[in-house]
């Protein structure tokens, strides 16, 4: 974990409201797939708290890029920082996507991965897809966004360039299949399972996106007995475990016990989906 001031290499608009920020660090940063950074435009008075952004790409030994959606004042401040400008950064944070498959699917032929990206959740899984491809794991990507334009903003071109099987959905039908990304995911698992040779348990689902999407992916995974990992999101105060603000409710045996809440920043952000109490939404909206 390094705490530093990085300089902006570039801060490019991909589509209106979506940008790619590339930062130069004065030392090497070893960020793994799924990890994140806490960032803030330097010396900006407002807002105070840094914002969490997933490491989109390790662009070089001392260079990281971040794909972000301009949502409110923190991301808007970041969007104003130009080449040569400074960004306060704490990175890398959180755990990372495990690419090793569980024992039960150790048979070479059944190493299968399904990556589900919803909206800007895509930023957390691009490096994962690259790693899966390098490990020669059979990977299917399901990529959902509000519209074709938003899909581009969420890095669709980078996902296409991976050359992996990719299914796109948009809420408005302007690109790919109309509807939610969970519909083709469910069909895919059903088709797979109907082929006698495969069981849902042979697949690992990796998901990152809006809370309701991940809750639904968890239900689908449970139905097909597939292992499911999710990268969760919650407003964060610090990003390194001290404020205990970014918690999610997890299943415990007893009534609300001490272990009922986990910090997204340091206990996650990646959790096994079946441990989460999905009815307790960590987000306020």
């Amino acid at each position: 974990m390094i705490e530093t001031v990085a300089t902006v290499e570039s801060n490019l608009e991909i589509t209106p409201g979506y940008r790619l920020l590339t930062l130069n660090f004065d030392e090497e940063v070893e960020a793994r797939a799924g990890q994140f950074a806490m960032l803030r435009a330097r010396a900006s008075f407002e807002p105070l708290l840094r914002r969490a952004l997933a490491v989109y790409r390790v662009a070089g030994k001392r260079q990281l890029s971040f794909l972000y959606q301009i949502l409110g004042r923190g991301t808007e401040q970041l969007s104003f920082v130009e080449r040569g400008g400074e960004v306060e950064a704490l990175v890398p944070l959180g755990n990372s996507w495990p690419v090793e498959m569980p024992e039960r699917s150790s048979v070479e032929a059944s190493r299968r991965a399904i990556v589900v990206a919803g909206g800007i959740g895509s930023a957390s899984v691009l490096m994962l897809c690259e790693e899966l491809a390098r490990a020669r794991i059979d990977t299917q990507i399901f990529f959902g966004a509000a519209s074709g334009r938003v899909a581009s903003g969420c890095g669709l071109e980078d996902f296409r360039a991976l050359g992996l099987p990719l299914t796109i959905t948009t809420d408005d039908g302007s690109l790919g299949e109309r509807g939610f990304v969970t519909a083709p995911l469910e069909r895919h698992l059903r088709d797979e399972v109907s082929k006698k040779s495969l069981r849902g348990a042979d697949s690992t689902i990796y998901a990152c996106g809006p809370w309701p999407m991940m809750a639904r992916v968890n239900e689908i995974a449970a139905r097909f007995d597939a292992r499911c990992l999710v990268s969760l999101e919650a407003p964060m105060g610090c990003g390194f475990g001290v404020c205990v603000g970014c918690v999610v409710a997890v299943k415990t045996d007893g009534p609300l016990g001490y272990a009922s809440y986990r910090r997204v920043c340091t206990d996650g952000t990646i959790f096994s989906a079946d441990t989460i109490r999905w009815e307790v939404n960590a987000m306020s909206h």
Partner: protein
Amino acid sequence: MTGTVNHDPRLAVEIAGIHFNNPVIGASGTFGYGLEFAELIDLNRIGGFSTKGLSSRPLAGTPPPRIVETHGGMLNAIGLQNIGARAFVEEKLPLLERYDTRIIANVFGYSDEDYIEAITILNDGAGIDAYELNISCPNVKEGGIVIGNSPAAAARLTERARRASTRPLIVKLSPNVTDIAQLARAIVGAGADSLSLINTLVGMSIDIYTRRSRLNYGTGGLSGPAIRPIAVRMVHEVACAVDVPLIGIGGIASVMDALEFIIAGATAIQIGTANYYDPRVTVKVVDGLSEYLDRTDSPNIGSLTGSIIKDQP
């Protein structure tokens, strides 16, 4: 780890007989159990830190969302999630032994007995330098009134805690009172060795589309630079009312902020929320204090405590 730090002797302060290498202390709830900062700063360089509030038993805390950013600050309703006094003594304290920094155990409870139980457990812990009593808690036995909002209840608790404690007792004042000087006098009268102030101010923020509070708990504690002028005023008022050393808290994010509190009457200061967005702020403030002494030709930090010049009647 000791011996590697050259402390500026001009920054040393004493509170209730405890020596602090400098007056910069990490505030409770923003500094974890100290260890979380070991990778970010040299813990030997700060005066000390106050732990996350510890209770007699571990606590789960409140459901999310627990925090929301406001202008110049944030609201929190963490519900005092903590590992419990016993786990702190057994699991965290041994790891803190190697640091030359003062450890203040922040304690809370939901009844007087609860506080005493936590203190009794902590009395076993080696390496704790003082207790800080968080009295901004509802007393469940008295219809949930906040102990720290009633001078009588706060004095009674202080007296009992004073008797149970084997260590110096700092009582942390709630700012959610009409007359903080009156509260301070009652608590010092009951035997507190020092006072720290202020805790968070009760606040609320509403999502206008859902028409619900942005915090699951409803209300939350406001902290950060937005509360600083209120905190400085309260430190000043309390400094005029009591003689024990004060620890100033509230929105400190720079050395200038820290100095305001010291000039108003604080012997030491705690930094809270700023640690979240500037994790090395404590060390920066320590360095800044030395520079200020140089620039103003002041002999030591103690000479500035309460040095405010009052021209107004």
